[in-house]
């Protein structure tokens, strides 16, 4: 299975970011991309299309679910939302990420 989508993120962080974004509520792919871009103030340069393989993988793992709906401008779009399993996964990843961050900061002497 090919999983080498190119992104400038740390490996695995894209999924965490998507999970975090979806805690806001259900969003379509474009909405997720917009949210990531705005929040990171364009620092995180994600190839936007790479969201979709990631979303599919997360759906396969049961972390997110999707359904088709209408946008406010009356267009058909696929909306993603967090499942309980996804919420648990996010908690785990946040904890993991926190530990990693602390470790990196210690090494870099920036804490």
């Amino acid at each position, binding site marked *: 299975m090919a999983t080498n989508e190119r992104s400038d993120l740390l490996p695995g962080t894209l999924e965490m970011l998507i999970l975090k974004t979806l805690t806001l509520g259900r969003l379509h*792919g474009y909405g997720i991309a917009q949210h990531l871009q705005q929040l990171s103030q364009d620092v995180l340069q994600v*190839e936007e*299309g790479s969201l979709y393989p990631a979303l*599919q993988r997360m759906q396969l793992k*049961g972390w997110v679910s999707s359904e*088709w709906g209408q946008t406010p401008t009356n267009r*058909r779009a*696929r909306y993603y939302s967090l499942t309980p399993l996804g919420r648990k996964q996010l908690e785990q990843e946040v904890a993991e990420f926190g530990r990693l961050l602390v470790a990196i900061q210690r090494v870099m002497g920036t804490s």
Partner: protein
Amino acid sequence: MPGPIQHAAMLLRRARFYFNRARFERELAEEMRFHVEMKARDHQRAGMNASDARSAARRRFGNTSRLQEQTGDIMAIGWLDGALQDARYALRSLRKSPGFSVVAVVSLALGIGVTTAVFTLVNAMLIRPLPFPEANRLVVTFQTITPGVLFPADSMPWSYERFVRVRASVPAFADAAFSTWEEYNLRRTGIAPGAMPTTARVRAELVTSNLFSVLGARPLLGRTITAADSAVSSGSAVAVLSEPLWRREFGADSGVIGATAVLDQLPVTIVGVMPASFTGIRESVEMWVPFKAIALLNSPRNRDRPEGGMGTVVARLRPGASIAAADAQVKAAAPAVNAEFPVRFFGSRKSVWSGGVVSFAAARQHQLIRPLLVVLSIAVASVMLIVCANIAGLLLARARARESEMGVRIALGAGRGRLARQVLTESMVLAVLGGLPAILLAYGGASLLARLRPELQPNYVLLRSVDLLQGQSLAPDWRVLTFVLLLTVIVGLLFGAAPALAASRTSVAELIKVAGSRGGTSRANGRRALVIGQVALATTLLVGAGLMVRSFRALLRSDIGFVPEGMVKLELSGGDSTLATPARQETVLARIAALPGLESAASYSCAPLGGNCFLMPVAQLDQRRLERDEYPPIEVHIVSRDFLRAMQTPLRVGRSFDSREASGRVTAALVNETAARLLWRGESPIGRRLSTFRDSTAPVEVIGVVADVKYEAIDAPVRPAIYYERGQWGGGSSVIVARTRARDAATALVEIRRVIFENDPTVAVHRVATGDEMVARAASSTRFVAALLSAFGMGAALLAALGVYGVLAYLVSQRKREFGIRMAIGAQASSVTALVVKQGVVLTAVGLVVGIGGAIAATGVLSSFLFGVPRADVLTYAVIIVVVGAAGILAAWIPARRVTRVDPVMALRE
């Protein structure tokens, strides 16, 4: 870490993806399009012009088709996706060469079908458990009496008294039942006046009341026999009907319970009907009556037994008890049994009884069934292998044609393993395409084989065996389906391995170097080896077929001691005393002989080729009394005075019975040649004396020697036999043989039956056959094996010839250029043809040598079927060598002829 539930959920989502792949891709494309359009709209709002906005959005999004592929890969199961893709590709490429595909699929369907048909039989007879609950706890006891004089050791029936004694001393038995069988005339009572009274001949089993509970069987209607029924004393008995008998004789009337019928002379009350699925433990039993009724039934078979009723013991083991334990317990009982019931076989004093236990499943097998199935299995396995070799050959030839395709794909970066897998998938697709119709073929084939099956003669203790080959027992069960599945996979691997290997070994460099004109020599060698194997297997099968055909002809031609043409045989049973006195019987015989078209009629106590003749010990020879069984038991025949004429048995020496034989006392006897040779060792037996009774005071005088008549099977050795004249012996005989002048035996039979009916309407006539039918039946198992091996052998030879043809046709097409050059520089067409034919001859010759070696090794399994022909029969081998050799040369000559049509100029230009 995802747990098992998540894994299952993932698998489910993946499965859903495979079913909705098109929709998945459509939705993903729509989603991505939506994304890009939204992005472009935002850019436009920020002031870009429309086309710039779109391209900027696309740039930011990335390569759509790559992303779509990536997403699909996430959902797909790698190997499955590859396999499906390969299978689709295989189907496409098979569609492109329909000729090859049809030949391959049809031959595979036939091969797998026939193999599965044989497996269906093996399954029904040897593997599938018997249709009784917990059948693995059912056992049968056997007994041997040494030295055994009357029965072969494995068919020695039990006596009831010993059964009762032994049952009490075997704690491993939860319960044990005793059963014996007999044929009776069944008459319904209370039929409408004026209706033709019918008497049905039925095979009834005389059983202890617990037989049904031991087997775990329940009635369809009414009840089974109870312990209270077993105490027969009032001169009547109860009876339980089989479903077929109930249907045939009682019109499937449910009011039959409580009705009465007459079994020979005994009134019986019908108390129950068993379901159709219950066929009891023996062949063709249609009725069950309490064992104790045997005393009232006046059974000729059991009346004369020194030890009462004879039969079979079926027992159910206690849960947890082993067969070995039961066996040990029965064996341990032997000394006590011998003390209580000393063996007295016609005064034989040195005999000792011993017993044992075998599983029911093992006991039900007729001695011929296993070798029959072994021969069948080997034959179909050979055919299957030849089919595989043929398809492998065809695939290799195709692989050659596709070499450049493979080369290009390797050059483009396809993995060799991937290519091999794809070629193997193609073989699997072929195998599956052949395997699916094979299931239907197998069912039809198994039914056909079961219908053609030889008639095996039942003996005393033979349990159900060939009856298992009827009706639903041949329907494919999970074992048969598993077998087809496994066989399909194995066959696919077998014929797919060589082409797959070849594909993975494709050398790009060589392909480019020689532009496909040479190379592939190792592949050609592979094909040669396959063809040699095919020729060898076909040769082995044909040798087997040849030996069987010769055996069959030998059986039909062999001297059986009577002339079957123009002979008819009827067996009588029951009735009142009309036919039971010599005088009355003589009258009937005279009336039959006087019928138009009939030459003579005689009666016998035992039908030729029927088996089960009465045996007695040689008790006195001339002046010498024999206490021990010095000689094998002698067959005793009670015949009418004119017996030699009806069967046209030649008289060798002396005279036959005539008016000198006064009735009242047995004074004279004839013996057969075997008896004369055995007892008097070359001296003339005429005037010598012999007795078959230990207590006899007056031995009888031998007045003549008759030719050996086969009373058992044709291929069984003739026993010594003695003939007594019925007038002297007293009583009637049950077999009538008449000789007709007319070719039409059917009319004669109607007349004969009318004469018998007029003399005694209560006599049942059964086992009616012409002499030719009797011989055909006796030769039926040989004919069965001969026919099957011939069919398989010819099919195999045809396939092998096709194999030889294929290899040489390929060779010719490969060396066209070379042959063209040869002919251009002056080679004769005939010498080039000879070159090709020589290759075919070499292949065939090597195959023949290997095949004959195989035949010498393999015909051992045929030994129980061979008759009158040695295993190393020179004529058979010679004929097969000539036939296979000729087929090989012909198969080589056809492609070789094509060489002469090669235009040298054209060949060089190509």
